[in-house]
């Protein structure tokens, strides 16, 4: 019986049948030229999801802006925002929905243009199957390889290749065979082995829902037939139990539950679980839902679990099968996909969100960058928008993880800019670096307290920041003299001097500036451990790195001094003649001229050099250190 007849005659029977439908999420890869929007429009149309009012609008749009000479242009059904419609391209990820008798489908529709790697990676991250479109007239193209690589990188194992526009090559068996052979050879190289190729015409509807009379030589499934039956849900349930804790549920003193979505395996009442990273163990006492307690729950279910022991569990922890727990580490290797206009800055602290935990993390210089078109490895010092590289990541504390290849939810992370809160990158963990597992902190007997007691003052970093020529070094030098006279153990790290030695390999690009400050901040920290008052005189133009330097030492051990000299005055002084050079274009990336300076928002001390002498400024610094309790 046709669906509409069943609905008309026995809607309860229809609902009964449809409540048992499963769900499949897939991504379509290809460009507008391959007929991707047409294919999606066709899938919506075939599943009777296009209403009369939409259809009327479609007919009108097809006449006005259609590309099919007045015939229905299905692509117009799915082209979204008005701005994009004018440009004629889709520039983001759109999600479409349709259902057949057996399944509900969520389609991630992403554009195939080169500059939009970001969107394809986003769309692929939630997809279980990829549909890759190939224009039968053009065969396997560079973009086909790029799409396939990204699909494989994001861990999609099932690929269906829709060889489209077959009507335009007279439904040629030979054309199809050639494309299939070439594609399979390539796919195998990048680890895609579960591949099905289907000859289709999205425009004419061949092999979409019904086997086409035009391709009697083809005996495989139709596109819908494949999508309706492909099995994907099982592997998640086969893995070991994982539940990243989202929220601790405490309605009263006698209930303490851990809420989260199971991202791997299954759990039963009575199972032993281990909390990662803390390593504590307990036993599951209840699996709570509003519909009643469960005996067992599996991957993809949202539940609340209670344990028999009162152990410490909080958001960001992962409940794991005790016998095969997730790893815990703070240094990793992984792929990073850069998604922001502003390039990645190795060494800059970003926030990393993995599962439900968020930690501070910095990314190393890429070991290499992957050319998504040729799959060749190239050397790189940073990653620009839409570039992909393999990097090391260093976190400020250990997190629970599994390799991305084993579990997407346990190994996929996003990187967040600490100041703008934008999502600037995403990545996939490969493995923990052995150095993080095998290098432990050495407990030192003569600690900071002991050093301070001997020296008669507390250690501190005094961080002078400001434009070139603001007067930082002159003031820092004067402070150094006064402290020395007071018997304080000091050292002065000056930007120019450090660049002659420790940082001689660094230039003045933004990435190098970040690394420059990272090294100096680490050196300053070591000297604070030794009990010194460390005077640091660096332009240090970015807030993020000054924040990083501050967080390396304890509270009360960092005094940020903003040497505030307006650009015009610093430039007028131009002690080193650098502004002149920069203005003449002989010096690039010069702070204040063609590189930004981000002034401190809340420094411990702001020195206005236009109203006070260096001597007065130096005295204010000494006074501030006394007030902070650094000096007795």
């Amino acid at each position, binding site marked *: 019986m046709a669906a*509409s007849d069943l609905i008309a005659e026995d809607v309860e029977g229809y609902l009964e049948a449809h409540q048992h439908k499963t769900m499949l999420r897939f991504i379509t890869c290809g460009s507008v030229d391959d007929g991707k929007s047409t294919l999606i429009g066709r899938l919506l149309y075939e599943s009777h999801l296009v209403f009369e009012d939409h259809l009327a609008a479609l007919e009108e749009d097809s006449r006005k802006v259609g590309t099919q000479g007045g015939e229905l242009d299905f692509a117009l059904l799915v082209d979204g925002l008005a701005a994009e419609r004018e440009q004629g391209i889709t520039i983001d990820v759109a999600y479409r929905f349709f259902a057949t008798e057996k399944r509900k489908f969520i389609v991630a529709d992403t554009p195939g243009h080169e500059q939009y790697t970001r969107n394809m990676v986003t769309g692929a991250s939630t997809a279980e199957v990829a549909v890759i479109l190939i224009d039968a007239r053009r065969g396997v193209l560079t973009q086909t390889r790029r799409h396939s690589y990204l699909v494989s990188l994001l861990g999609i194992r099932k690929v269906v290749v829709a060889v489209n526009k077959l009507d335009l090559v007279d439904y040629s068996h030979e054309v199809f065979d050639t494309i299939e052979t070439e594609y399979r050879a390539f796919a195998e190289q990048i680890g895609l082995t579960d591949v099905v190729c289907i000859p289709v015409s999205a425009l004419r509807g061949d092999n979409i829902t019904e086997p086409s009379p035009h391709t009697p030589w083809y005996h495989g499934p139709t596109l819908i037939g494949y999508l309706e039956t492909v099995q994907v849900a099982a592997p998640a*349930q086969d893995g070991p139990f994982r539940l990243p804790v989202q929220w601790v549920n405490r*309605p009263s003193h006698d209930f303490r539950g851990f809420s989260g979505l199971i991202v791997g395996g299954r759990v039963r009442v009575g199972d032993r679980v281990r909390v990662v990273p803390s390593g504590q163990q307990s036993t599951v006492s209840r699996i709570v839902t509003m519909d009643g307690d469960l005996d067992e729950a599996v991957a993809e279910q949202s539940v609340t679990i209670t344990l028999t022991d009162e152990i410490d569990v909080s958001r960001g922890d992962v409940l794991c099968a005790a016998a095969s727990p997730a790893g815990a580490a703070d240094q990793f290797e992984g792929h990073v996909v850069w998604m922001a206009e502003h390039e990645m800055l190795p060494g800059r602290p970003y926030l990393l969100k993995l599962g439900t935990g968020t930690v501070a993390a910095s990314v190393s210089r890429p070991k290499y960058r992957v050319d998504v078109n040729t799959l060749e490895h190239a050397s790189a010092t940073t990653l620009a928008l839409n570039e992909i590289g393999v990097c090391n990541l260093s976190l400020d504390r250990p997190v629970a993880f599994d390799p991305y290849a084993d579990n997407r*939810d346990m190994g996929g992370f996003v990187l967040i800019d600490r100041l703008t809160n*934008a999502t600037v990158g995403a990545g996939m963990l490969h493995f923990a670096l052995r150095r993080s597992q095998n290098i432990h902190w050495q407990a030192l007997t003569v600690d900071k307290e002991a050093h301070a007691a001997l020296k008669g003052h507390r250690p501190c970093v005094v961080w002078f920041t400001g434009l070139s020529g603001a007067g930082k070094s002159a003031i820092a030098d004067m402070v150094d003299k006064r402290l020395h006279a007071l018997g304080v153990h000091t050292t002065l790290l000056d930007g120019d001097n450090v660049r002659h030695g420790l940082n001689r390999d660094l230039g003045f690009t933004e990435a190098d500036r970040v690394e420059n400050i990272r090294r100096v901040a680490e050196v300053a920290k070591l000297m604070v451990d030794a009990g010194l008052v460390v005077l640091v005189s660096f332009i240090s133009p970015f807030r993020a790195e000054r924040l990083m330097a501050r967080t390396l030492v304890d509270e009360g051990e960092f005094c940020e001094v903003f040497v505030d000299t307006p650009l015009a005055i610093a430039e007028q002084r131009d002690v080193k003649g650098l502004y002149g050079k920069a203005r003449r274009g002989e010096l690039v990336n010069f702070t204040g001229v063609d590189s930004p300076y981000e002034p401190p928002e809340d420094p411990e001390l702001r020195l206005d050099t236009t109203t006070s002498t260096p001597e007065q400024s130096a005295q204010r610094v000494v006074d501030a250190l006394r007030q902070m309790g650094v000096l007795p």
Partner: protein
Amino acid sequence: MSTQATLPHRTLTHLQRLEAESIHVMREAVAESERPVMLYSVGKDSSVMLHLARKAFHPSPPPFPLLHVDTTWKFRQMYEFRDKTAVELGLELLVHQNPECLELGINPFTHGSAVHTDMWKTQGLKQALDKWGFDLAFGGARRDEEKSRAKERIFSVRSAQHRWDPKQQRPELWRTYNVRHSQGENIRVFPLSNWTELDVWQYVYLEEIPIVPLYFGAPRPVVERDGTLIMVDDERMPLFPGEEPELRSVRFRTLGCYPLSGAVESTADTLPAVIREMLLTTTSERQGRVIDHDSTGSMEKKKQEGYF
């Protein structure tokens, strides 16, 4: 990897997976915000969203209040249903009516649907979020409702001026939502993003979720204007000379302000009957909403201005 591989696989239905996803979204939102609120519009999507919130935090009550941005022009049955729901579930209900609109007496008849909607709903929502200092608001919008919503994120960032900038929206990968926001910015969260209209109805049916009776066919006083059936819900509705409300059996596919909600003739008085009509109908759900007809991309414009 584990000895469990031999156990039979449990198959989750599409509704079970959607439910689990929505619950996960709500828990992330609550865990990473200071002061969340749920926008409650009294419609069926709000009913489903509220039901999911109860599931997400059970046995605790949902840890946020409900906010109704009112226009004073909703159906009377909606107000009854709203107040009854809040009392029965023991939830805090906040109601905001734009004081400027109250003063000026903004209504759809003299000011037109565009001004009415902008002032009561768009401006009213901004006022309410600012008034109570909410930094995160749940909304019941779905991606399948309208073309421009197909690209909306589940977590959508709004500037301090409540503007939606398509270029500033964050990529959303896996289930790893970036909920961070600066002081002043707020986040709109749409837990029903991946639900379709049929999913919502089917879930209402399966879970026996209470909805406003206006969704069911019943004799109601209506007048026909420009081919749209408008219910005369109170005496504020101005009638044209000679216009006489007549009793017809009608129901509503979407609910809003009664003068702006078109009714459809129907005798469907049970959920299966309503779903049957929904499945066999040939026009989309939003067609009954008067505000969408203005121009192509009108929803997109409203969104940029801060409408949900």
